Each structure stands twice: as C-alpha cells, then as structure tokens.
C-alpha cells in the first residue's frame, strides 16, 4: 500500500488548494461504510461470540475472499461498473477443478494445474462477455448479471447431462451412480486433493507476521523520509511519512507484545494462536500490486480514459471496444483464480452452487467498503471484505440472541447483501440523473 504515497501527495495538495475537504462531506461520502462499521460493532456485541472465534474466522475469510473482490476493480476503472459476470470466471475455475480431479492430480501441482487450465477458459469466457457488453453499453451491469444466469444454465447443462451422456467420463468419484452428470459435491480433500494446497504451504503465527511487516514499513518509511528530504517534498508529505513510521512502529510493537509478553489476559492470549496462511496472503498482495501497477501502465491509462469518457477516448485514437474487452477478460481470469483460492480453502466443491452467489457477495463487500459503480480502490475492497464478513460471521448468532432464531440472521445477511447493492446502485443512478438535470 505504501506505494500509493506519491499519488496521494498530489491529491492532498489539491484538497488543500480547494478547501472542499471537511468532516461533513467525509461523512456524506462514506455513509455506507460508517453505517456498516456500527452495524458490525453492534453485531459483535450482540452475538457474544468469543473474540478469538471471530478473529480466526475473519482471518480465514479475508484470505479466502479478498482475491475475488479485488477482481472487480479493473472493470470499474474501465467504466463498466461492477462486474456481475465474475461468476463466469468462477465457472472456468470449477470446470478446471473437475478436470484436474478427474485426472487425479493433487496437492500444489494439482492447484497449479487448475490455475493453468482455467486461464485459457477464463480468457475465452471473458472475451465473449466483453463482446456482449460492448453491445449493451450503458447497461453493462444488468447484462453481466443476466449473462451469468444464462451461463449458469449452460454450465448445468454441461455437467448435469452432457458429461456422461455425450462426453464419456467414467469416474465414480465424480459421476453420479447413474453414469450421467457430475455429483453435487466433490470432496477436494480426498487423497490429499487440492484442499489447503495453497494455505498449508506455510503458516506463520500472525503476530510474527505483524513484527515482520512492521519492520518493513519502518524501513520503507525511513528510506522515504531520507529520499523525500533530498527531493524537497512539501511539509504535508513529511507529516505523511512520519505517520507511516509511527504506523510501522505500532504494528511492530503490537506484534512484539503479543508474541513475547507473558501476562496477557486470557482472551487476548488466545489470539496468539492465530496463524496466517502466508502464501495465500502473498497471492492476494501480489494481486493488489498488480491492480496498483496496471494503473501506472499505458494499458491502465487507457482503462481510465475509456472509463471516464468513451467518446473522447475514441476520438483520441484509443480502441474503446478492445480496451473494454481486455478489462473484462482480466477480471474474469482473476475471478477464476480467486475462485480456486476460495475452493482450496473450503475443501469441497459444490458443483452447482459454489459459484452462484460469489458475485453478489463480492459486490456487496466492495460496496460496503465504500466503492461505487464508478470508483473502486484496493483499500475499499479490503475494508469491505473485513466488514462484510464480520457481518456474515456474527449475524446468525446475533439474531439468535436477539430474536431467538438463527435463521433470521441468515435472511438478514441476504437482505444486507441485496439491499446494499440495490441501494448503492440506486444512489449512483440518482446522482447521475441529478447531474443530468442540472446540466
């Protein structure tokens, strides 16, 4: 995240130039996020779940889901809104998992083979979606949603009827006893399948990671401060760098205390048992970096230009349609890999169900994090994952405590997921009409 520094400096300076930044507008712009922070805190209180349980679940869910949410960013950048068709990317992943399971390749090689196989599939699907979306400019989101429903029909047709009937597969682990159709659930842990393939490569207690990250931030901060002096940045950037240093110190010290201190209260001591799946986390970080770096390239600039104004982009010679196709294709490929990470952690593939809700949940998460149809950042994605999944963890228990019925909690989080999408999209559309009428 530290690399964003340069960009933020200019933004800060501009805010200083036009004094539009104030507390009120901050609240107005982030109302959704703030609201959900409160709901989450309330939920955690009500649920009476132990902190360790929540933290552990959350850690698992963050590493499991972040990748999928991050896959949404590039299409937003390219002005295509929230990509509901990441479901189709997930289908590519599941197709390759089924193939790899059929071949019996397991463990890390199995996982890598899945990633390898899903790539061409996702590129193909992404390309097709891109072409479709180019035909429905201005209605991209509903189109991508209906497209994912449509694709789901084809997917079911493939695995329920064609496999076994037309495509001969003889594998009792996969195929229903009748010889036609793939089983509803496929156990990915059988014979050391791809379950935890990525997660279990390296797991490190989280507070050790804290210490490590703390040290890296401190080193970075010092370097920046030193170099910053040489380039002669303004005062405001100095404040920024010092706060980075302090952040690094806090992270380091927290890590240090939790690792080495003997006299912690019991419920906090439990937290030291948290372990971070390092490789999975690294993959997520690499994706963050990818999203960040691509903005700095010519391609990224094209995405942004197309996203801001298709007409101007095409007048200045950018191939708008092609750029949009590339954006969706990247998103689809990332979604496929995201689904792989998701499934290797879950450990069972629900052939006809695992992919269905991922777009809804990923989009709800990124919106809760403060993103909108036209703007989404890495930070919003990650914050959204944390908030949304906190809600996910605590809502059944909270509802049970409150109404005596856990089912209400499940309905409630469905309601939240759909509601937040509906409301954010509605608000966005409203702002758009307001702008139009003002003109």
């Amino acid at each position, binding site marked *: 995240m530290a690399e964003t520094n340069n960009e933020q400096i200019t933004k800060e300076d501009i805010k200083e130039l036009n004094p539009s930044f104030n507390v009120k507008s901050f609240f107005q712009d982030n109302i959704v996020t703030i609201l959900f922070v409160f709901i989450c805190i309330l939920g955690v209180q009500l649920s009476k779940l132990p902190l360790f349980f929540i933290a552990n679940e959350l850690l698992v869910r963050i590493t499991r889901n972040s990748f999928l949410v991050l896959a949404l960013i590039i299409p937003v950048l390219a002005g295509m809104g929230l990509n509901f068709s990441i479901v189709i990317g997930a289908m590519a992943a599941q197709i390759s998992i089924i193939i790899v399971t059929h071949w019996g390749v397991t463990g890390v090689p199995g996982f890598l083979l899945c990633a390898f196989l899903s790539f061409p599939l996702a590129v193909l699907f992404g390309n097709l979606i891109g072409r479709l979306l180019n035909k429905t400019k201005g209605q991209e989101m509903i189109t991508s949603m209906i497209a994912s429903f449509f694709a789901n029909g084809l997917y079911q047709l493939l695995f329920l009827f064609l496999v076994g*009937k037309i495509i001969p597969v003889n594998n009792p682990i996969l195929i229903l006893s009748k010889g036609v159709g793939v089983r509803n659930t496929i156990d990915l842990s059988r014979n050391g399948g791809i379950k935890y393939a990525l997660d279990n490569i390296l797991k490190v207690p989280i507070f050790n990671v804290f210490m490590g990250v703390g040290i890296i931030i401190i080193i970075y901060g010092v370097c920046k401060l030193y170099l910053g002096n040489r380039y002669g940045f303004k005062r405001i950037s100095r404040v920024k760098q010092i706060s980075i240093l302090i952040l690094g110190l806090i992270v380091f010290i927290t890590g240090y205390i939790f690792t080495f201190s003997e006299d912690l209260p019991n419920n906090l001591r439990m937290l030291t048992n948290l372990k971070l799946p390092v490789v999975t986390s690294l993959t997520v970080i690499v994706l963050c970096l990818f999203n960040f770096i691509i903005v700095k390239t010519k391609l990224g600039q094209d995405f942004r230009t197309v996203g801001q104004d298709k007409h101007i982009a095409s007048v200045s010679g950018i191939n708008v349609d092609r750029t949009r196709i590339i954006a969706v294709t990247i998103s689809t490929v990332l979604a496929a890999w995201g689904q792989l990470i998701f499934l290797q952690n879950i450990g069972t593939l629900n052939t006809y169900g695992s992919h269905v809700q991922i777009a809804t949940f990923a989009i709800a998460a990124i919106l809760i994090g403060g993103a909108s149809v036209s703007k989404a950042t890495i930070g919003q994605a990650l914050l959204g994952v944390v908030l949304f999944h906190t809600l996910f963890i605590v809502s059944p228990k909270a509802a049970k405590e409150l109404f005596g019925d856990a089912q209400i909690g499940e309905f409630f989080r469905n309601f939240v997921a759909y509601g937040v999408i509906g409301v954010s999209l509605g608000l966005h559309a409203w702002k758009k009409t307001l702008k139009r009428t003002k003109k």
Partner: protein
Amino acid sequence: MTESIKEFTSKFGLPRLIITGFFILICIISVFVGLPFDSMLSDIIRRFGMYGILVLAMVPAIQSGIGPNFALPLGILCGLLGGMISMELGFVDAMGFWSAIIISLPFAIITGWLYGLMLNKIKGSEMLVATYMGFSAVAFMCIMWILLPFKHPEMVWPIGRGLRVTVSLDSTYAQILNKFWAFEIGGVNIPTGLLLFFLGSCLVVWLFTRSKIGIAMKAAGDNPKFAVASGINVDRCRIIGTTLSTILGALGIIVYAQSFGFFQLYMAPQFMAFGAVAAILIGGASAKRAKISHVILGVFLFQGMLTVALPVANELIKEGSLSEVLRFIVQNGIILYALTQVGGGE
C-alpha cells in the same frame, strides 16, 4: 391493418422464431414418444391462465417507460401478504379469494407508488436497481414471515417460529377459479374461471390503455420528451404504470397460488420476475414496447414449451431436471437478447 401485420412479422425476430420452432419441434417429438396429448394440453391451458396475470403485470411497466418490471417480487409479496392475512382472518372459499385480493390491494398501491417515486429518481438504471430491490424485498420479507404474529395452525410451523415455507390452500380456496365452470372436451380440461379471470384482466388493462390517462402513460413511455411537450406529467405516468404493475403482480400471485394449491413463501418469489419478463419478450415485446397480444402469445409459447419440454426431456434423459435447466437457458437467453437490442449503439 395490413401495416400492423407487416409490423408484426418484421418484429417477430429471430429468437421468437427459434422458440416457436422449438415448441413445434418438441410437440412433434412428444407425439412420437407417445405422450398423452390431452393431459398435456390441459396442462398448457392451466399454466397459461396461472402465469398469465404475472406476465400481464409487465405491460403497464413497459408502456410507462420503466422497462420490464424486474421488481415484480414487490407486487408478489403484497399478494402473499394479502393471502396470509385473509387466511389468518379465517376467510374461506370465494370469500377467502376475494378478501385476499382486496386486502393485498392497499399494500400493492402503497408499495407501487413508493417504488414509482423511487424509480423516477433513477431514470435509465431501472432494470438493475429493480432486480436488487426485488431481491432485497424478498429477503426482508423472509425475516417478516418469521416475525409477523400469524397464528393460524395451517400457516405456521407446528414447532418453532414463523410461517411455513409452503402454505396449503386445500381447506380454503385452492382451485377455486380453475373449477369455476370447468368442463372437459375430449379429455382436455378447460378451467373456464381461470381463463375468464385472466382474459378479463387483460381486457381491463386494454381498456385502461385506451383511456386518456392510459394514452398519456404510453406516450410518456414511448417518448418522454414528446410527452412533456404535450403537457403530460411524465413522472406521474411512470408512477401510475409502476403501481398498476405492482397491483397486477399481487393479483397474479393469488391467482397463481389458487391454481397451484399453495402459497410459496420465503425465497420462492425471488426469481419469478425473470420468467414473466422472458414470457412477454418471447411474445414479441421489447424493453420499450409491449401489448396485450404479446402477453397472450408469450405466456402461451413460454409455458407451452416448458410444459411439453418437461415430459419430453424426461423421456430423453431420465436423470435430473433437464427442463428446469432448459427454462433457465431460454429465459435468461431471451432477456439477454432483449438487452442487446436496447443498449446497442449508444
């Protein structure tokens, strides 16, 4: 008239031709595999009447310019609520049926009106927002079905809280329309009451479109700028269209339920809008234009195809629910096609 016939054929379009062709094909297959023709025809007619009003609900929505009403679940939920309350109050038979409708009306009117107000704020993005409005309303009512203080023993779980997932109408007004003046010709059962009710509703909507306000509404949907220049209050017309659509949704689900014999609560209404949208599109409507004839043709083709496809599919492939998958593909495929027709160019 020749003009409108020409218009009709040119608008028939590729997907509708395919579906009609497919329908005829599976009809032929069904004869070959020896399926009982008469019971199948009875089934088609029954489902035609059963789904008709839900599809009809799309007409005022499309005509008033808000596009296919993906938020049909809002109306459906109002209908369900009306049905539940009427049952709780102990109404049975005809009284139960009509009281369900009457009780659901105020809910539908208020919901439709509020929803129409909201749609006026988000012109141009109606379909997507509507979809998620519908979804979240369904999820919200899921909570309500548990929390609302219903007591009737046939409605609530014997143990635990809340309403059942399906509420049987056997003791109240199941089949009440279907059996009204029903008769049989050559083994084909004609549910006269159901058909009359559906066609009656169509007639009412048709008369409405020929009244002053109906014409204003259609103009507002066709070309809002034109409507404004003719002194028509476009926003008001859109609200009227939305409200009407919501009312028809409520009415539709009650008619559906009496024919089906159950009220389906909880997540059941979530995707009902999609089937209705697909049906009217198959009938020849677009996201911007719809007529009563589109409803009648569409619901006949779509439901006919599904009715015939089910046994045919079961003959061909014994396993699984091929026809369900087929419905999914056709339904979303046709909506997708309609979307490419709307969005193109711009």
